[in-house]
């Protein structure tokens, strides 16, 4: 795109790829020296963003004080300045808008098939394909500014979130979507209406000539002759192949499956056809730092113990085999591979539950088999064995206006004698009677994969900030119990009860080590009060249970 625009605006004899208008000047922060005489290295993280906004406003020639805006006719009278960005769209703070409205006429969003993007990303950044696939799936939205290098914050998001941000109806100016593949097929027909819409005037002949001069092979020749300043330090050439569909020769089946799993929703919106059938899987939030790939799980792990018949594990590598063709492999607390075939149901429970809790153990911490709810700023963890009613109780509390932070797997963080929950959005799994008791239509909710009888309900996304735990309530349905009662536990009894509710308790010692687990449980017991809430086993008394918890 830039090559075409530069060719359009440059005399044919002067067009070299190394002179491509990057769109950075006069908008880059380093231009603050000639424009304001200001050395941006002296600025703070937030001031440098504000400086950029001033440069953009000034560069668009619409930054003069008290300017009268006459509306669209005024905007379209002058040719547009094109500015290149890799950033996600966001409104920004007042005075630090990355795309100030008074200086922005429109946007052209150039997208490329993420499968080809991964193949291009890898050599450019000098990484392998798996790392490239991980990188374009990572939703980086909070990159810090770098005043020492005169750089503003440049959050890029993942391939999907970046695309969605620009296509959002919240963007206050027109956005013209251009697919790279369409440019290759017929750049003139693709760009002619876009350029007309943004006021970049040219005849079809001029555009055709520019497209010809910016042909990929010519850019390669130009780079070979005079270099290209934007080549990365990791690669000798920038213009590698330029074709579409090259991923078919470069990516393995598993890599294609992973990319399509990561991006299938947006790929579908843009019109990219899928080769695989992505699993029904709610993505994990980025802050958990656990990357999910699709592929084959290793058959064996060197030096692994087998704490249960379906789990083989070392301290850093764990394989869980659900069936002959369904397995999960978690390594180093950072990566999980999901091998799962032929299932139309929701497999999120494998990732949100098993993968997350195992990754937590591999990182040296543990989680409780518990839900966590916020009641009037108090953080209450509700633990219990399977079927004790954790999800039903927490959903009932949610129905009373309290906030569900996480269901079923509560990740713990220990810091200087305080224990925190690390919330994340996890689907709530309900049996038919629980769904009915909560007023949900069981038949309308997706069933869990693997032949399970529960359905999956997705609550609102909680805040990601760790929250200090105020108390733990252990639900204990009992025969012979007449009505729900609440009792605070003391001494070793607290330790014993909590030990039983460590998530994946069968494998926790094998991964974490006995000593570490004991230490963490001791820290938990010392830091947090524990209550036992007994209730009749065959009769719910849900309202009474909920009221007891609210009263804590």
């Amino acid at each position, binding site marked *: 795109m830039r090559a075409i625009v530069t060719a359009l605006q440059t005399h044919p004899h002067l067009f070299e790829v190394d002179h491509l208008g990057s769109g950075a000047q006069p908008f880059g922060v*380093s231009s603050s020296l000639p424009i*304001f005489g*200001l050395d941006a290295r002296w600025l703070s993280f937030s001031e440098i963003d504000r400086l950029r906004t001033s440069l953009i406003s000034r560069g668009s020639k619409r930054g003069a004080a008290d300017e009268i805006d006459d509306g669209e006719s005024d905007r379209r009278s002058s040719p547009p300045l094109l500015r290149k960005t890799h950033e996600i769209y966001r409104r920004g703070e007042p005075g630090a808008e990355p795309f100030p409205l008074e200086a922005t006429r429109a946007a052209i969003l150039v997208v490329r098939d993420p499968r080809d993007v991964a193949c291009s990303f890898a050599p450019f950044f000098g990484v392998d394909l798996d790392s490239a696939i991980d990188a374009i799936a990572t939703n980086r939205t909070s990159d810090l500014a770098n005043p020492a290098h005169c750089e503003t914050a440049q959050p890029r998001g993942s391939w999907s979130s970046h695309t969605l941000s620009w296509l959002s109806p919240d963007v206050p100016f027109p956005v013209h979507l251009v697919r790279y593949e369409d440019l290759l097929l017929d750049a003139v027909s693709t760009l002619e209406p876009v350029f007309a819409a943004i006021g970049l005037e040219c005849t079809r002949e001029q555009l055709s000539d520019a497209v010809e001069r910016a042909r990929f092979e010519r850019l390669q020749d130009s780079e070979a002759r005079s270099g290209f300043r934007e080549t990365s330090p990791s690669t000798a050439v920038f213009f590698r192949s330029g074709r579409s569909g090259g991923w078919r020769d470069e990516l393995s089946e598993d890599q294609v499956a992973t990319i399509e799993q990561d991006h299938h929703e947006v790929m579908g919106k843009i019109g990219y056809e899928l080769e695989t059938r992505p699993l029904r899987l709610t993505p994990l939030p980025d802050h958990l730092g656990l990357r999910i790939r699709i592929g084959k799980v290793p058959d064996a792990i060197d030096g692994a113990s087998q704490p249960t018949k379906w789990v083989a594990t070392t301290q850093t590598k764990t394989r869980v085999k659900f069936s002959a063709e369904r397995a999960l492999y978690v390594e180093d607390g950072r990566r999980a591979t999901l091998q799962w075939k032929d299932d139309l149901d929701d497999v999120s429970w494998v990732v949100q539950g098993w993968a997350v809790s195992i990754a937590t153990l591999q990182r040296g911490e543990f989680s409780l088999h518990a839900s966590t709810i916020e009641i009037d700023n108090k953080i209450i963890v509700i633990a219990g064995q399977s079927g004790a009613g954790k999800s039903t109780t927490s959903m009932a509390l949610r129905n009373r206006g309290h906030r569900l932070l996480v269901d079923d797997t509560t990740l713990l963080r220990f810091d200087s004698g305080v224990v925190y929950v690390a919330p994340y959005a996890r689907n709530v799994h309900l049996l038919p009677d629980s769904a009915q008791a909560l007023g949900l239509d069981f038949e309308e909710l997706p069933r869990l994969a693997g032949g399970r009888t529960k359905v999956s309900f997705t609550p609102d996304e909680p805040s990601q900030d760790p929250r200090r735990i105020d108390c733990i309530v252990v639900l204990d349905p009992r025969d012979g119990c007449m009505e729900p009662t609440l009792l605070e536990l003391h001494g070793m009894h607290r330790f014993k009860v909590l030990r039983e509710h460590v998530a994946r308790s069968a494998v926790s010692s094998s991964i974490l080590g006995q000593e570490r687990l004991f230490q963490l449980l001791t820290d938990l017991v010392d830091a947090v009060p524990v209550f036992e809430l007994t209730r009749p086993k065959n009769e719910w008394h849900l309202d009474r249970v909920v009221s007891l918890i609210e009263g804590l």
Partner: protein
Amino acid sequence: MIRSADNRVRLDRDEDVWVGRFPGLGSVRVSPDGQIDVEVECEIESDDLSSAAPSPLEDIERALHFGWGEPLSLVRRGFVLAEGVALVSPGSDRCVLVHGEVHDTSILVLGLAARGWTVLADRVVPLEFGESSVEAHPRSAPFLVAKRRAETTQFVSHTVRRETNTVAVEVDRANQPHALSALVSVRIRRPNESVFEILSGHDRFDSARKTLLGGVLAPSTASPEDSLRRSLRLASMPCVALRLDTYAPGTAIDALTSWWDSP
């Protein structure tokens, strides 16, 4: 609809006294004789040490003075300004101008400083074009690098503001004008590239031309012919391109110093 530019950075040069305003930070005023006055906009308790607090008053004053007031003052005092870092080699009067991206130049400058070179001026280098030589003049503004880069060296450094990653590094400073003897263009090396190249022809002229600052930092009497003459004067000096490996810049620096020390 009236748009107010009150929250935008501005530099007004219509009057005798140039006024730069950075909303939320402060302003600088530079007189025709180069005198600088700084005014901080926000009120800060200088003893508030919380990490969420803005920088102390004196840090902001220093930032406005060195980062904004001084470059404007230098151009008002008649200097021609180059972008880069001027260094003086140990045991000689010879000065070199290093230019490139700030990330890349900082690696080279720290490497040379560790070998005894002294820093004359950082980021904005005042030049005086005499009949027979071009002199680089000193600046008192500290030498700035990214905190992470400074931590890889043995030099002492100080944060310049509370909410930034820029630090001032205590390297040896030269405080007298020196004749400029060469230009060094520096960037990160790409695969299969050589670390050192003596520039010639268009590349040499282009390298020299790009060091001269324009816009508000261009000499007030500059005509296109003056600008061309100055570019040619600089291009007449030896110009080299240095390509660094970020984590192992020693090879490139050896090549530079070897060339510099050769007769």
